[in-house]
């Protein structure tokens, strides 16, 4: 029995949430449907840990779906690279589900809660599938599963605020354009090479040189995925989608959705195409690098002037995605590893910040703007302390996870002769303190307009405490994250360089 499970882990990690989403929708009891969702995400997380163990103890797993041998059949590939986003998604989805127990019923009609959990699991299944699959077209299908499910989840915020509907609409249109661009790219590459398997594709692309359709296909794929990953200036759908989604959904999406797409971007740039190829080098140097630097500053400055706190956090996400793509764009082993470290840490940081802010919104029961944060810090000390720790982590203060990733990105950029890049990263981090301080000042130093009688509920702050603990833990002992990220970078760039 255990043997069979271990053998089929790569598909189980996708199928468990996918199948359970069909069962959850049938359950009419809200608590039961939540419990089942929690159970499913826990199982998925355990599966992902088992996969981690398998990959590190033995070797990369290539799973032939339906026993059709790749490259003809669809391959599910778990290696040292793809295991990182799988762990991120499984971990965050478990914590976010835990967090959702009390928050979700406050914002969504009783009758639709089990449907929301069903979509929730569908989105998780889509994201994990996106990362697991080694087939270019299968990847598109999962891209659409996850994006349609998350659009519907964002639209559920429309029960409270009608702007969520417009946000969801924009997310849908831009997401569909991104996915279609990706399919055009895949089609062109398929036309040239005759294969859809990513590993096979990379072998055959290496044999072709100077083909215009190849360049066009590469362009379409990269732009499509950049749109999905919200790389500046293709980020326009992100702030609204995250700001008006129901609270728990914001936590889930902010921490996981763009991370999966960023992983795909890295995979296409470094694994399918060759980094020593001029095409990739120019793209990194002249397109992604300047855009990332712009993203770092534009995101931070937009966040400084933003008054709606959920939007503020979403703008800061754009800046943080900028750091990750910047690390990828430098293109050395150390910098790609740094990118993966920040991928992991940013998921923890942004998940925690969204949890803290949305639980504040839960207690005062209205949209959180900078003005009605006043005095909340004194009224809810536990949430406030977690919020401050995670803010410090975002700014990159030592002893937190954020420090580790900034350290490695800066180290990598200096060793790649980019001292000016290191300087820009530091400048943008310093700017991010401005908006973080703005929130902390309002929370702690401003008087509250009325006496706030808030009793913090353990159901809500336990998940927040857990994720804050992880933020500190990975700041003190980052060896696991750092080692796995370097292994991943070695695998992505190792053969070529």
């Amino acid at each position: 029995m255990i043997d069979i499970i271990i053998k089929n882990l790569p598909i189980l990690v996708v199928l468990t949430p996918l199948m359970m989403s069909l069962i959850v929708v049938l359950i009419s009891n809200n608590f039961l449907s939540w419990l089942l969702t929690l159970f499913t995400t826990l199982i998925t997380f355990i599966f992902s840990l088992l996969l981690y163990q398998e990959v590190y103890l033995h070797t990369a797993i290539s799973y032939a779906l339906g026993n059709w041998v790749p490259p003809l059949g669809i391959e599910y590939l778990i290696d040292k690279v793809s295991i990182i986003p799988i762990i991120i998604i499984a971990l965050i989805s478990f914590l976010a589900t835990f967090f959702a127990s009390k928050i979700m019923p406050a914002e969504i009609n009783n009758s639709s809660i089990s449907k929301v959990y069903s979509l929730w699991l569908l989105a998780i299944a889509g994201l994990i599938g996106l990362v697991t699959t080694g087939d270019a077209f299968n990847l598109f299908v999962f891209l659409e599963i996850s994006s349609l499910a998350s659009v519907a989840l964002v639209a559920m915020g429309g029960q409270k605020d009608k702007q969520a509907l417009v946000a969801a609409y924009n997310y849908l249109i831009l997401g569909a354009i991104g996915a279609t661009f990706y399919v055009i790219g895949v089609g062109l590459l398929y036309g040239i090479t005759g294969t859809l398997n990513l590993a096979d594709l990379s072998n055959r692309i290496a044999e072709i040189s100077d083909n215009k359709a190849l360049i066009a296909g590469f362009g379409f794929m990269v732009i499509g995925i950049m749109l999905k990953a919200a790389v500046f200036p293709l980020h326009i759908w992100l702030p609204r989608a995250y700001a008006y989604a129901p609270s728990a959904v914001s936590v889930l999406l902010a921490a996981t959705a763009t991370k999966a797409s960023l992983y795909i971007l890295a995979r296409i740039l470094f694994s399918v195409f060759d980094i020593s190829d001029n095409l990739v080098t120019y793209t990194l140097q002249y397109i992604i690098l300047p855009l990332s630097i712009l993203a770092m500053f534009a995101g931070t400055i937009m966040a400084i002037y933003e008054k709606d706190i959920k939007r503020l956090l979403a703008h800061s996400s754009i800046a943080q995605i900028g750091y990750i793509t910047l690390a990828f764009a430098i293109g050395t082993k150390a910098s790609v590893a740094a990118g993966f470290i920040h991928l992991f840490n940013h998921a923890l940081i942004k998940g925690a910040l969204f949890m803290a802010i949305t639980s504040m919104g839960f207690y005062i029961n209205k949209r959180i703007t900078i003005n009605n944060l006043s005095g909340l810090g004194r009224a809810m000390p536990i949430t406030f302390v977690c919020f401050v720790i995670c803010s410090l982590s975002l700014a990159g203060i030592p002893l937190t996870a954020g420090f580790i990733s900034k350290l490695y990105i800066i180290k990598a950029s200096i060793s790649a002769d980019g001292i000016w890049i290191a300087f820009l990263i530091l400048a943008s981090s310093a700017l991010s303190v401005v908006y973080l301080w703005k929130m902390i000042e309002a929370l702690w130093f401003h008087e509250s307009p009325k006496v706030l009688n808030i009793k913090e509920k353990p159901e809500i702050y336990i998940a927040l405490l857990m994720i804050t603990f992880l933020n500190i833990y990975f700041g003190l002992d980052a060896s696991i994250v750092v080692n796995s990220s370097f292994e991943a970078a070695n695998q992505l760039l190792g053969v070529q360089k």
Partner: protein
Amino acid sequence: MISSTLGVWNYWIVFFLMMIGLFLVIGRKNLLKKIVGLTIFQTSVFLLYITFGKIQGGTPPILNNINETVYSNPLPHVLILTAIVVGVATTALGLSLVLRINSEYGSIEEEDISAQDLIDYHDLIETSKKISVKFKK
């Protein structure tokens, strides 16, 4: 030159449709028309794949015991079946969102909607400010 350009006329149709679709999505302010554009855009990609899969004089891939038969590649058709399903789901979700937007905002024109949103956003910031100012006095 001319024959090689016109000889691939099916690709011309594909890119013509693609541009029309993309233009409708970007250029139109009506939410429903944007979805029409999106559908045209996606359809052009279906045609692109089908074009790849066709070989002149090729037959469907059914074994017929004649050695020199040229078979067309069936895989693009299968892929497009999947893509059509995805496209239908996207359109359905988009249309249902447009319906909900229409019942909440009373309009599906982008200008009306963003004007209403701007007022809401302004109210949200201003009202909460007034409360805190009043309290300070």
